[in-house]
């Protein structure tokens, strides 16, 4: 893992990986959404609103995956002092928050015609809203404490916050089992799916496409943070030489 700890080496890899992830992700996601919108049939019970799931489900997955990225990167920062881990955690926070917000909004747009209400305070929706607030807290904390570490990472306090906040992920996942909910139970589990193939394939394609976009955005934000650190270090060196 420390083979990728060198920022120069990371920037070389990110240079070709960023456009690959972004262009591949946009292409696959666009094809999957067009497939879901125009080629997939309406569902027997949900009608045409089933098409919202091709955006809602990838957004939910990436909202949770974003926080797991923060938690794993936080662990790598605290335990192995990996120099890029804190930067990766900071870079994953904004796309994670955006996809969590998109999950909540598209879920609400699906809930109105399907359940007859925009919102209910049940376990799944509430724990997802808490995830969004955790993201806001993490972004503010990482920004305020980034200078206590190596100058570019999220800082130890934010890394600990990321690890503690990960407790919400299994709660989101199990909420539909533990509590009564309008939200349906998981349709896709490890090795098993109750979704018809007509919906499953575009859903999987959309999930892959949006995941690649997420990866591309994280790489762009890591490159931005690294460039800021390098510019700041040069200006500081120059100021010391001039003084």
């Amino acid at each position, binding site marked *: 893992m420390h083979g990728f700890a060198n920022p120069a080496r990371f920037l070389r890899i990110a240079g070709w990986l960023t456009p690959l992830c*972004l262009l591949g992700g*946009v292409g696959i*996601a666009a094809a999957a*959404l067009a497939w879901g*919108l125009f080629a997939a049939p309406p569902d027997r019970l949900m*009608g*045409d*609103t089933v*098409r*919202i799931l091709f*955006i*809602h489900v990838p*957004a939910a997955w990436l909202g949770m995956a974003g926080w797991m990225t923060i938690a794993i990167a936080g662990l790598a920062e605290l335990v192995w002092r990996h120099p890029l881990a804190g930067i990766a955690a900071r870079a994953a926070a*904004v*796309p994670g928050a*955006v996809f969590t*917000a*998109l999950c909540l*909004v*598209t879920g609400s*747009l*699906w809930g*109105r*015609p399907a359940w*007859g209400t925009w919102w209910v305070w049940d376990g799944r929706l509430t724990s997802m809203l808490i995830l969004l607030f955790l993201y806001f807290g993490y972004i503010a904390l990482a920004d305020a404490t980034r200078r206590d570490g190596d100058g570019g990472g999220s800082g130890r306090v934010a890394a600990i916050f990321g690890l503690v906040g990960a407790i919400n992920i299994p709660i989101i996942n199990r909420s539909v089992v533990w509590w009564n909910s309008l939200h349906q139970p998981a349709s896709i589990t490890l090795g098993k799916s109750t979704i018809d193939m007509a919906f499953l394939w575009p859903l999987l394609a959309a999930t892959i496409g*949006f995941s690649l*976009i997420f990866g*591309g*955005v994280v790489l*762009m*934000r890591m*490159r*931005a*943070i690294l*460039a*800021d650190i*390098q*510019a700041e270090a*040069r*200006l500081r060196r*120059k100021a010391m030489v001039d003084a």
Partner: protein
Amino acid sequence: MREALDEWAFVTAAYVVGVGGTALMIAWSWLAMRRAEKRRERSREL
């Protein structure tokens, strides 16, 4: 009694929000990266 809602209006709104939000996030991150890399280049020239 079931409300007669236009399902496509909700589908369209979800796609506009989802695709628009994702596009804005990509554009914002790309601009932030370009600006930061330009700042780094300018600091090299000082």
